[in-house]
C-alpha cells in the first residue's frame, strides 16, 4: 500500500478561536438544559411539598424568590462547569471550551470571574457579545474582563477518519454491526 507517500492535509481547527455560531448554539443548549433541570427541580419540590403537607404549590415567574434562585442556579451551572473542566454541557456538545487568553487551562478564579461578568454582555442590547464577531480573538465583553478566550476543543481529524471509515465500506460494516447485535 502506498500509505507512506502522501502527506495528510491538516483538517482540524483544534486550538483555534471558536466562532459565533458554535458559541451561540452551545449557549442555546446550555440555557435549555439548565432551565430544564431547574424546572424539573421545582416540579420535584412541588410534588414533595404536596405529598408532605397536602397543599399544592405553584411557582410563578414573577416570584422574586424563584427569580433569585434561578439566577443563582445559572451562575452555579456556568461557573462550576467552567471551573471544573472549562466547558459546559452545551460547549461539550459543540466541541468548544474556555481557556485563558494565553491558552492555559482556565482556573476556578477566572471561571468565577467569567460567570460574574457574563450578565454584563447582555447589557446595552447584548452589545457585549459583538466582540465575538468583530474582535480579533472573538472575545466577548466577559472574556475580556475575565482574561479568557473560547477555542475549538474537538478533533476534526478524528471525525474525518470516522467519516472515511463509514464511507469506505458502509454496507459491510453495517451488516457486520447488525450481525454482532443479533448474536
Amino acid at each position, binding site marked *: *500500500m*502506498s*500509505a*507512506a*507517500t*502522501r*502527506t*495528510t492535509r491538516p483538517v482540524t*481547527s*483544534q*486550538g*483555534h*478561536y*471558536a*466562532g*459565533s*455560531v*458554535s458559541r451561540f*448554539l452551545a449557549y442555546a443548549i446550555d440555557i435549555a438544559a439548565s432551565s430544564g433541570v431547574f424546572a424539573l427541580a421545582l416540579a420535584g419540590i412541588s410534588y414533595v411539598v404536596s405529598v408532605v403537607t397536602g397543599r399544592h404549590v405553584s411557582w410563578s415567574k414573577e416570584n422574586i424568590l424563584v427569580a433569585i434562585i434561578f439566577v443563582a442556579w445559572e451562575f452555579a451551572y456556568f461557573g462550576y462547569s467552567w471551573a471544573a473542566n*472549562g466547558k459546559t454541557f452545551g460547549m461539550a*456538545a*459543540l*466541541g468548544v*471550551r474556555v*481557556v*485563558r*487568553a*494565553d*491558552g*492555559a*487551562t482556565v482556573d476556578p478564579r477566572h471561571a468565577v470571574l467569567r460567570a460574574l461578568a457574563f450578565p454584563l454582555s447582555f447589557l446595552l442590547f447584548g452589545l457585549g457579545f459583538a466582540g465575538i*464577531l*468583530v474582535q*480579533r*480573538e*472573538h472575545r466577548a465583553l466577559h472574556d475580556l474582563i475575565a482574561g479568557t*478566550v473560547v*477555542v*475549538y*476543543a*474537538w*478533533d*476534526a*481529524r*478524528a*471525525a*474525518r*477518519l*470516522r*467519516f*472515511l*471509515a*463509514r*464511507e*469506505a*465500506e458502509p454496507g*459491510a*460494516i453495517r451488516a*457486520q*454491526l447488525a450481525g454482532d447485535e443479533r448474536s
Partner: protein
Amino acid sequence: MTDPFEALAQRVAERVLDLIVSALDVDALLDRVDVNALVGRVEINALLDRVDVSALLERADVNELLDRVDVAALLGRVDVNDLVRRVDMDSLVEQTDVGALIARSSGGAATEALDAARSQAVGLDQFIDRWVQRGLRRKQATPAGPPALLNGRAGP
C-alpha cells in the same frame, strides 16, 4: 618408494618457508598494499554472478543472525514520529480494515450526528468570520488561536 634426497629437500624447503614467514612483518606488508586499487581491479558484478545467493541463504542461520542484532539500538535510531507523519491516514482507513475498526469502535448515530453538527457549525463560523473580516476591511490576518495551543497542536 620416496627418494631420501627428495624427502630431505622437502623438509628443507618447508623449514626455509617457515623461517621466511616468521621473519616477515605481515602488518607492515599489508600497510604497503593499496586495498582500494586492489578492490578496484576486482570485477564485483562478475564475482556476484558466480555466487549462488539462494544456496548462501540456505546455509545462513537467519535466527542466529537476528539474535545478534541489537533491535533496541536499531529502533532507537528510527524516528517513529517522522515515520507516522509520513503515513497517509486517509488512504490507510479507506483501504484497510482499520476503517472497519474505527467505525466499530466509535460508530453510532449520536457520534455521526455530533460530528455533522460540529462540522456545520465550524463551517458557518468560518463563513461569517470571512464576511465580517471583509466588511471591516482588515488587511492583516487575524490570529488563529492562542500560540501555546497552536504550537503544541495537542489542544486544550
